[in-house]
């Protein structure tokens, strides 16, 4: 699996290369600024890109902009965006530019190598990887009187995992329950939130995220 990495700090860039190569990724290019990221993405057409939000030359959200720009030119190009901080605003911008193959994670998530590599693979396969921080923020600010009030604690857990972009089997493994139980919970959640059920993992992430943020601004 071919990957393009964009990270301006040499230490972190080398770390990411080492980590991904150790997990059978082929690093097609590792760049350190926005313009060369865009060129690398369009030249190499990697299976997935791992991109830092803040890059030279402006040290603003250069990486995020390059990723959105590249996805406009190559629809569905899988991009996993990494940052020192997560903003719901950025998550929405990434998701609204087209749903599949998008990830947005805190850099801290790299600590758990297994989960991080999982996330990269999931994004490469057209799935979604949303940082638990984004999801917990969205869940935390829901009014207790809203529709989420009817949801059981277990269903809330499943909802969180689902919104991060995990598949049923992965949720089942993480919560130590059967896949059947997970899909039962998910059906119940979709019924309670009055959302049309969707078998597609990434589409249901979008549905849940759209629902949560719409609920927040109702």
């Amino acid at each position, binding site marked *: 699996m071919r990957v393009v990495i964009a990270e*301006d*700090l040499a230490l972190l860039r080398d770390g990411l290369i080492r980590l991904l190569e150790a997990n059978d990724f082929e690093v097609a290019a590792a760049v350190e600024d926005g313009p060369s990221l865009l060129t690398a993405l369009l030249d190499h057409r990697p299976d997935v890109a791992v991109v*830092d*939000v*803040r*890059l*030279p*030359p*402006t*040290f*603003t*959200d250069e990486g995020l902009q390059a990723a959105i720009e590249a996805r406009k030119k190559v629809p569905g190009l899988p991009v996993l965006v990494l*940052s*020192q*901080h997560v*903003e*719901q*605003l*950025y998550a*929405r911008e990434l998701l609204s530019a087209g749903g599949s193959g998008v990830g947005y994670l805190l*850099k*801290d998530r790299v*600590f*758990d190598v297994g989960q991080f590599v999982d996330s990269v693979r999931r994004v490469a396969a057209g799935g979604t990887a949303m940082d638990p921080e984004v999801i917990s*923020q969205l869940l935390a*600010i*829901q*009014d207790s009187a809203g529709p989420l009030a009817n949801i059981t604690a277990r269903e809330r857990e499943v909802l969180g995992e689902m919104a991060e972009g995990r598949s049923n089997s992965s949720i089942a493994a993480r919560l130590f329950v059967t896949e059947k139980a997970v899909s039962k919970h998910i059906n119940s959640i979709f019924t309670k939130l009055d959302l049309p059920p969707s078998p597609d993992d990434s589409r249901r992430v979008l549905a849940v995220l759209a629902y949560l*943020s719409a609920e*927040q*601004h*109702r």
Partner: protein
Amino acid sequence: MPQIHYYRASRTRLLAFSLLFTVLSVTGTVLLALTLLAGFLSAIWLGLPLLVLVATLIRRYTGAVRRILGEFLPDGPIPSPYRPTNNTTLRRRISSTLTDPAYWRDLAWLALNATVGLVIAAVPAALFAAALDSVAGLYYHQFLTDPWIVAVHITSPLAAILLLPQAAVLFFLFWLLAPPCLTAYARLSRLLLAPTETMRLSARVTHLATSRAETIDAQASEVRRIERDLHDGAQARLVSLGMSLGMAEDMLERDPQTAQRLLTEARESTRVALTELRDLVRGIHPPVLVERGLDGAVRAFAVAQPMPITVDIDLPGRPADPVESAAYFAIAEILANTLKHANADRAWVRINHGRGRMVMVVGDNGTGGATAAPGTGLDGIRRRLSAFDGTMSLVSPKGGPTIVTMELPCVLSSPKTSPSSATD
């Protein structure tokens, strides 16, 4: 107060002002007389409190005149020239009142106003009255047998006919002289009512000294907070991380299981330290402010709140970093207050820029009753903005809504941001 162009101002209005200033000049002499009386009584101490009382009246009186005169001056109302008074004790109050040069200039103005000022201000009203009197004379001559009822001597029908052109001439003079007379009156009064350059500068120095002291205080306590957070947070975590790693290294051979546990602990420590650092950084200077400027940062803040917040920002460029940061924290704090206290179900933020000032308005439809009394959060915001010569005003009647308006003088740079030295 909208400034009117005096040649186009309605003559009725000018006549009214002329009458008003005439009456005010006369009542002003009462204040002057009271001051003199109090001055004499001061010989037996009794007069001093009276003197202060009259001084307060004079301030109110001249304050009203300063506002009204704004109609005839190109820069609008005349600014207040007084030093801040010390009201702690009567003695201090007396001395701070009497040593303020603006007080003595007010007295000089009252005297000038009762003489030269009265004459200039009364000219239009007098001309108009004379014109009216001439017409009245004609009227009375025709219908009354006693021609002496009016002040104009009418001895023959021809003299009565001549009253008509006389009235016309007087009215024409009124028409012509009313604007320059009132303007001259306003300019003359400004000479004594406006602060002198020295007074203006000394008031400015006082303001700058206060706001600088407040800024330094605020900065010092902010630095202390950051030091404490780093010391008790990230720094402590890194120590424990180093310990865990050292022990794990030591046990790797002898007890791989314990080593593994220690490594997991070390990873957890790192994660917590990073979370703490992230929160700290957000409090110092939110990363999204660097990445997206005020516009993006306010929007990012708004979408993360459990209440709909409408954001309407029209800035053609970015203000300087310190201004941007002060504006962001002021808005964020006001919105946080709204969430906590206002019982609102929606809020809005509007920001635009014009005439060298950035204007920020934050409002909500809550229950109102917010105050900016000393010691409150809003007062803190006001003081922090004043370090940038900014202002804050609050409208929050009981029952709502609450509207906070802030202004910061600043220039905007070109839309694209310049590189900073920060990295992600």
